[in-house]
């Protein structure tokens, strides 16, 4: 994901590491930018799943495999 404040590209693991020392680390449901500290909400799980399925189906068709 990209930070809406400073534009840094980072992943959820890096965001988790940026929460070190926060009393709500891992509980607030937000992702913190490792560079500037701006916080955003992660993509909902259902959308991630939808994307993952869509990606697999698309990859399957591209490879010429029927799913």
């Amino acid at each position: 994901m990209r930070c809406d404040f400073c534009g840094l590209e980072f992943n959820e693991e890096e965001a988790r590491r940026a929460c070190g020392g926060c009393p709500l680390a891992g509980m607030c449901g937000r992702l913190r930018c490792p560079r500037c500290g701006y916080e955003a909400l992660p993509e909902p799980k259902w959308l991630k799943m939808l994307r993952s399925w869509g990606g697999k189906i698309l990859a399957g068709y591209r490879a010429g495999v029927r799913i």
Partner: protein
Amino acid sequence: MGASQVKAVTYPEPVEEALAEIAVLLKGSYRVSPQAVALLLLQEDPEIHALVKDREGAGYGKIAEIVSRVRETLRGAVDEAVLQARQGRIAALAAAVVTESPPGSAAVADRLSRLMMNPWTGLPLLALVLYFGLYKFVGGFGAGVVVDFLESTLFDAHIIPWVNRLVDGHIPWPAVQELLAHDYGIITLGLRYAVAIVLPIVGTFFFVFAIIEDSGYLPRLAMLVDRFFKQIGLSGRAVIPMTLGFGCDTMATLVSRILETRRERIIATLLLTLAIPCSAQLGVILALLAGRPLAVLVWAGFIALVFLFVGWLAAQLLPDERPTFYMEVPPLRLPRLANVLLKTYTRMRMYFIEVLPLFVLASVLIWLGELTGIFAALVRAFAPVVQAIGLPPEAAVAFLFGFFRRDYGAAGLYDLYTAGKFDGVQLVVAAATLTLFVPCIAQFIVAIKERGAGVAFGMFFFVLVFAFGAGYVLHAILRLLGVTL
């Protein structure tokens, strides 16, 4: 002159003089040049200071004096001066070797970006964003059209009468009837506040906020307000907690730990507690003042004045070095509808999950308070205070529950407003006092955790007294001037 002797960057005069003086005083052996060591000393690098203290012995005292003198001359902005000198040199080098011919759209974006950061054009642009984004869309559409439909057409005309009938017809005990329905019931008050008043308002607010975020406007806003924030002891970086504060002050208080110094963190927490309304509170206040542009102007001007005055006062009382702020501004871009809708959805979902149980709990507490008589006693005790600032005694309820949840208090004011209990001046005074009123209980707990109990309690009592004092003064001034809003 050999390439190694070419001076890469020329710093401001006080820095250059100090570099030369310190370089002469350095007798020990270091892996880098004396000038580089001197520069790190001026930037207060703790490891270099420890190393030089160890290797120079008695000579360190004279070096530390020079460092202090320069930092005093530049009012603590040594880092900023060094960064600006380097940035200037980089820009000059790049300009000498790079020829750039941006495509049309990039050139427009670049020009717009510069206009957003220039105070002469940036402030009017900010006013436009606030007017159309907050006043017209959140206040006019969200709080006007959508709330009107959900509250009047759906809840007041259909759901509430049906719930009242259903509860009265099936539950014989009046106490349980009151818990679920009628004036303070879970469904008729808690659910109605959450679904019909607060959710559409925060939904439209989150939509506008997502557009602002996705366009890349926030870092430009940080650059724009940097010079104003320096006057109140903060820097452009404080835009991060301040902006997040418009979403939720509790989370913003946690985020204020990204600020450089303890002084900045205390000032930011105080200003968040006092003068930054959370999304729901802001939306409901805009709903209260919708259709009265002068009232909005008086409220916004008063809150901005309080923000600057208290920030300035805090900066004077907590003297320290000026914070530095430097960031690379990412490109300006057209917001993508998919991103905006996704952000709005995720925020609304999270907000609703968080707010609904609390609103239900608030209704249960009111019910308990009604049943035991504690609620009426509290309202009676608090009524003289709200009457002193020119408000009807019923407004005490909104302020009492504003401490439990700021948005709950604001929704209570909205109810009183729709019942015709306020005139224009009272509306503005109520909105201003509730905006400045003590933080909700969650923010208060986070402030204790982050800033310590002494600072948090001190802020709590300061804000409590200041909010009503400011409300009293505003009411007196508006009545004295005979203003009608």
